[in-house]
């Protein structure tokens, strides 16, 4: 299982802040996880079309090519705007 979290405008677009996902073996990176989730159709396709989508794995900011494995916490969110 992978714990997936959503924040800010993405959280609102998806109507939820987290979910547990049991992805197929083909999901090995953040990008493939995103594509797997987005392929479920509305509203999840927002993950595929989001401009400048950012991700974190186990609370470290990563690129889309970063590896993902069972037990990870993966977060998707728009560019940060704090400070």
């Amino acid at each position: 299982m992978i714990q997936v979290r959503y924040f800010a405008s993405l959280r609102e677009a998806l109507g939820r802040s987290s979910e547990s996902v049991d992805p197929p073996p083909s999901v090995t990176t953040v990008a493939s996880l995103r594509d797997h989730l987005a392929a479920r159709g509305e509203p999840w396709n927002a993950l595929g079309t989001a401009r400048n989508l950012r991700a974190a794995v186990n609370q470290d900011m990563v690129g889309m090519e970063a590896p993902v494995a069972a037990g990870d916490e993966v977060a998707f969110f728009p560019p940060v705007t704090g400070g």
Partner: protein
Amino acid sequence: MTGDLIDIREADFDVGAETAALTAGDPAAGAVATFVGLVRDRNDGGGPGGVAAMSLEHYPGMTEKALAGIVEEARGRWDIRRVRVIHRVGDLSPGDRIVYVGVSSAHRGEAFAACEFVMDYLKTRAPFWKKEQTPDGARWVDARESDDQAAERWGGGGR
């Protein structure tokens, strides 16, 4: 180092007390640079009242981890003494303080550089998101390209 602080909270902070804490009991500190960010009542190019209120969301756990990483990176780059970072979340109004970054060091050059570095990296690497209440409704604030440029000028080490 003793005296360091990373604190995410809803409550306001006391700039005088935080700045004093950066050098309390440390007579080797000769310089303190601080930054305070506040909620403006407008957007760039917009007039007063364009922003009536703001709410700040964050990613608990990752926020603290990201800020600790940013502070550690600043320590690797400059000879600094203490660093205190406070960031508020939740509902805020124009004029409210949002963020405090303070750095102490022996001399001012290091304190200024590290303080600005922490702010620039916080703006691009710490998971906070602002949502503004405007006369046209609520909107998530867009990331500013100038913030990416500000962070990039410090070179390497990013991400």
